[in-house]
């Protein structure tokens, strides 16, 4: 790679310099006819409106309500999610992993930031940052403690390091006290972190 100078860019406080540099690059790409800036606006808008944890929450709520759907989700998540017209299309390589009283699943990308964008939106900063990426595979209970989450010590913890194009969605356990709830009500309980494995769904009646 080129040896041009990076050393001005290591300080978070130099945000305005970064901002200028981003603008300069966009100007160059536009002037050279590589991108239409309106298309960049449209990409950002699409990410802001079409993807997000609401997609994953609908899938989870459906799996909690419909045993046949749950079975197909665990067998082939890409195909199962594809049958739900209202959820954004996910492309290939989605795998759903089920939490049980015996086993808790947690997802990480130690090498970078692989994450099921279509199901959960863009990943939060902590997911892409060194503390989580370094410790999730070695000390997941310590990481869970950082989230205020603890598990019985006999519960098996399975950490999925997303090292290829497979994307993992954790299917959390359905909270007790939700018998007879509609899918829409259930979806309200599903948090982003519960689908990464660093949290639990909300419990009925608890303050959100």
């Amino acid at each position, binding site marked *: 790679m080129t040896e041009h100078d990076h050393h001005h860019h290591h300080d978070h406080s130099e945000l305005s310099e970064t901002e200028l540099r981003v603008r300069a690059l966009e100007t160059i790409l536009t002037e050279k006819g*590589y991108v239409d800036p309106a298309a960049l606006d449209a990409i950002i808008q699409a990410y802001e409106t079409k993807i997000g944890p609401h997609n994953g929450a609908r899938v989870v709520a459906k799996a909690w309500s419909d045993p046949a759907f749950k079975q197909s989700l665990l067998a082939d998540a890409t195909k199962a999610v594809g049958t739900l017209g209202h959820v954004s299309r996910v492309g290939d390589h989605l795998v759903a992993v089920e939490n049980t009283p015996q086993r808790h699943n947690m997802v990480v990308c130690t090498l970078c930031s692989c994450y099921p964008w279509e199901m959960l939106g863009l990943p939060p900063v902590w997911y892409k*940052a060194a503390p989580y990426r370094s410790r999730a595979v070695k000390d997941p209970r310590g990481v869970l403690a*950082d989230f205020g989450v603890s598990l019985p010590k006999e519960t098996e913890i399975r950490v999925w390091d997303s090292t*290829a194009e497979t994307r993992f969605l954790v299917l959390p356990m359905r909270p007790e006290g939700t018998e007879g709830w509609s899918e829409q009500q259930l979806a309200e309980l599903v948090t982003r972190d519960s689908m990464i494995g660093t949290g639990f769904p909300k419990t009925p009646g608890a303050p959100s």
Partner: protein
Amino acid sequence: MNGVHDMGGMDGFGKVEPEPNEPMFHSEWEGRVMAMVRAMGAAGAFNIDTSRYYRETLPPDIYLACSYYQKWLLGLEDLLIDKGFVAASEIAAGHATEPAKPLKNGKFTVDDVERIMVRGKFERKPSAPARFKPGDRVRAKNMHPATHTRLPRYTRGHVGVVERNLGCNVYPDSAAMEAGENPQWLYTVVFDGTELWGPDTDPTLKISIDAFEPYLEAA
């Protein structure tokens, strides 16, 4: 490459700090960077594995000190310069001064946005049968390629069990270097925590990676 990006198992980075009600972008420029990377990739300037490789090759001190989208910006600049789409002098000037280089898929326009909102397909036709099957014991090779790889250091030399065959997929190690897709079988391989981290490790811990066949040998 044995870069600082390969963080699994490193100590000293401190606590995880979740941010309540985190916004999708913390500044407007982050969204612009994300969109430029997506657009230039879709226009054919580079493939996704090459863009990942360029972020990994940022100098370690820069990598650790930069925010996520700052890394994306620096990686994108380097990549566009190396591939001849932008000149370093243009970055310095903040304006185009050189002729454009044709893009494989042409200019990225509003009409192209829809297609990038669906993930690409990475599965390919195999040229040979899979060497391993679920239940097989395999060792992650003791290998240290100087270029892009998806075999994390913390698994190398360790024995795990194949859990699932994920099909034959584009091999990022080749694709990142623009050496073709070179499809390889991909498996979920599960390791015991104690195998990776020693006898004092939580006995309930299991860790899996998705490992391409060239990373594995029978054990």
